[in-house]
């Protein structure tokens, strides 16, 4: 006589555990529970994938080479200042290759004095062969290039994290992938475009002086439509004086909403950058137009005071990512470390600008190499369709099994429910992510799961036809089907594991449900149904079996 008590206890335990783990995944019920119950229960369940709850999945690459160029350009700027300070009249200091600075001077006697300045730039070394009597060539060291590239991605990660925190997304994911990629996942974002702009913006804030001495000679058009930008650049190409560049101020006509550009001749030299900011906030001006007020840190404030003091009555451009926001005339020396960024923007745009300024600039531009965005409505549609097809599929199988195998079919249906319950419990316990293909995996588990019982039942029928008694036929059927079923499951599991290892996002979700479903099926088909048959056979001798 086989004991069924132990196995029933095991089944009951599995059911209770599955329910306990699954509860947090079903929010309406979980929320309705009293506090003490929620304290005991696990607090995390199944997470919905981005394809089901909507959101953004982006993979970006930091333009590392550009980060090196930017670092070299900064050194060029500071070297220019240093040369002025030391009263060494160099003709030009320029970045001549990605990692190279060339300094030219008319007076060959200056060479040794300028060479000494290299002590202040330990990350550079002099390339003797490339220089001449009137020029010096400095190059960035390999170790420094590596450091810059490495810190570029870390800095980008940090900056993006800061921005997203301030944007306000629940459970965002920002992480490094491989050497130079950054993965950003924002589940449930309502305004994907805004979030993407916020992440992508380099947000390099610079203060530069207009070149007003040459401004008149250039004869710029006053205001051009946005599309004509390239035309203007081409028209004045070659006429731009050394050390200057053309930048455009962006304007929006408030009545028509059309965008315009105003070209300016701006000195390339950066007076001050946004990394000396300590805060940026949105304020509303007297005509109800929003602007961003910025606060410099101590050093930045003193610098700003000096620069404004030296340039009274001149125009200074506020440049963000090579776009001029405004170019006001400096009326007076500005002390107190505060300034304003005005321009034609909406409150929301001003708000986003304040966020990126607070969070800091990206070390280099980002290139988006993968962008999957799912709107919230599609996510809900997918859930509805997934649930609907799961229910129909389940119903079809349950009815078929009842019709074809009668009472035994009902037992198989019971095992099927057990299989689904355990699957949901296991997914919850692992905090797995459920994706749309994952739902398909659950549906497949229904269809493949009952196969085990079909194979067992067909074996039992065979034993019965051979004239065996019910109890022997049942035992024989289970024994003989076991190996076949394991063989069949293992081959499916092999592909499932391969898909899990090499699949991305949604596919991984499919692999997880499929593998778990198949593995659990072995338990429910053999322990779950067998215990019921044993129970039927336990009491008086059974002569016939409804199968």
């Amino acid at each position, binding site marked *: 006589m086989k004991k069924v008590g132990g196995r029933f206890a095991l089944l009951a335990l599995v059911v209770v555990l599955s329910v306990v783990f699954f509860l947090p995944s079903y929010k309406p019920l979980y929320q309705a529970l009293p506090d003490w119950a929620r304290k005991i229960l696990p607090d995390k369940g199944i997470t919905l994938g981005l*394809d089901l709850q909507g959101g953004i999945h982006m993979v970006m690459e930091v333009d590392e080479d550009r980060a090196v160029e930017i670092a070299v350009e900064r050194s060029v700027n500071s070297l220019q200042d240093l040369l002025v300070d030391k009263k060494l009249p160099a003709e030009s200091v320029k970045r001549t290759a990605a990692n190279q600075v060339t300094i030219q001077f008319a007076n060959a006697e200056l060479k040794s004095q300028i060479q000494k300045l290299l002590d202040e730039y330990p990350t550079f070394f002099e390339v003797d062969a490339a220089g001449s009597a009137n020029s010096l060539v400095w190059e960035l060291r390999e170790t420094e290039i590596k450091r810059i590239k490495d810190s570029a991605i870390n800095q980008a990660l940090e900056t993006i994290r800061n921005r997203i925190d301030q944007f306000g997304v629940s459970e965002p994911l920002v992480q490094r992938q491989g050497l130079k990629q950054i993965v950003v996942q924002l589940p449930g974002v309502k305004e*994907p475009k805004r979030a993407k702009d916020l992440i992508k913006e380099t947000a390099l804030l610079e203060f530069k002086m207009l070149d007003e001495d040459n401004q008149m000679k250039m004869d710029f058009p006053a205001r051009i439509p946005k599309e004509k930008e390239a035309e203007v650049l081409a028209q004045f190409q070659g006429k731009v004086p050394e050390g200057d560049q053309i930048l455009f101020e962006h304007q929006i006509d408030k009545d028509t909403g059309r965008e315009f550009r105003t070209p300016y001749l701006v000195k390339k030299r950066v007076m001050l950058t946004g990394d000396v900011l300590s805060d940026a906030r949105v304020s509303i001006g007297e005509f109800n137009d929003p602007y961003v007020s910025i606060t410099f840190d101590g050093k930045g404030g003193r610098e700003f005071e000096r620069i404004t003091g030296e340039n009274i009555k001149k125009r200074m451009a506020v440049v963000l990512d090579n776009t001029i926001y405004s170019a006001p005339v400096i009326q007076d020396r500005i002390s107190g470390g505060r300034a304003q960024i005005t321009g034609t923007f909406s409150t929301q745009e001003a708000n986003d600008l304040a966020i990126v300024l607070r969070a800091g600039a990206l070390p280099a531009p980002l*290139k*988006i*190499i*993968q*962008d*999957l*965005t*799912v*709107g919230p*409505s*599609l996510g809900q*549609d*997918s859930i509805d*369709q*997934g649930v*609907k*097809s799961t229910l*129909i*599929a*389940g119903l*079809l*199988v349950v009815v*078929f*099994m009842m*019709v*074809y*195998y009668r009472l035994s079919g009902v037992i198989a249906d019971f095992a099927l429910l057990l299989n689904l319950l355990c699957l949901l419990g296991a997914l919850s316990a692992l905090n797995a992510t459920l994706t*749309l*293909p994952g739902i*398909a995996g659950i*549906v*497949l588990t*229904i*269809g*493949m799961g*009952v*196969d085990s019982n*079909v*194979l067992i039942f*067909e074996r039992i029928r065979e034993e019965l036809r051979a004239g065996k008694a019910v109890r022997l036929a049942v035992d024989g059927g289970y024994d003989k089907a076991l190996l*076949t079923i394991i*063989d*069949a499951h*293992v*081959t*499916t*599991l*092999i*592909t499932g594991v*391969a*898909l899990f*290892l*090499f699949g*991305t996002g949604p*596919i991984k979700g*499919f692999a997880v449900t*499929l593998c778990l479903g198949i593995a659990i099926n072995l338990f429910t088909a053999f322990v779950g149904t067998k215990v019921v048959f044993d129970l039927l056979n336990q009491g008086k001798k059974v002569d016939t079996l409804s*199968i």
Partner: protein
Amino acid sequence: MLEILGKTNFDFMGKRKIAFIFSGIMVLFGLIALVQISRGAANLGIDFAGGTAVQLKFDQAIRIEEARKALESNGLSNAELQEFGQDNKLLVRIKASTTIEEKTAERVMAVFSKEFPNNKFVVDASTEIGPTIGKKLQEDALIAIVISFAGIIMYIAARFELRFGVAAALATFHDVLAVLGAFYLLDKEITLLVVTALLTLAGYSLTDTVVVFDRIRENLRIRRRDSEESMINNAVNQVLSRTIVTSLTVVLVLIPLTLAGGEVLHDFSLALLSGVIFGTYSSVFVASPLLLLWPGASGRMMKRN
């Protein structure tokens, strides 16, 4: 006892010539598809090829010709359009090989809001995949395929003697190639999900084959006097109803998934559905007769242990 089929005695082995011809043609199409994919000439999904897909949901019905005209007049002539009738949904796909420009998704949205100002839409989903990611996904898919097949063949080899292992592996290739060939003929997109379906199929289609082979092995031990051909035929007939019922339960779940599972899962379920049907056919008409092709096997007794 309700039975789909009672005791049967079909001569499956006798039909093997016809079956081999049919299967050969299907496999041929599958191989052509494989060559075309590796040449980059097949209809690869944007997850492999790189590109942009935007799915828009309009307030009112939109005519696909008008949509195409609007896109063409705005310089997006290489867009593929697909509509999902009942919800006024439109899927716009642009492959990367034909456009290098960034922000294609935004351009598509701009075109529709400019050309159809009175028909508002929401963006259901947008996907942009750079060529490097596409390459990476191709490689990953290839590795997954190789590992799955190697794993399956090794497992079969360990569980069955060589002849069975080879026949089962060939039958599995047959099923996957037949579905791939069918998708190629129907000009369906080969996406990451379709590849996933094909791999799942490779694992699942073995179920039927294993059931038949187990029975053949079992019969080898009992019946010593029959010819090999009739013995295999008997085994197939004996397990025929369970072969059909196990497939039927999977078909029963795949039909609602194909019809009501939504556009994302449609091709995935269709690949699985056709694969399960091919798999059932192949376990009877391909895998088992292949055993007879083994050198020196025909008409003779096989090794019994």
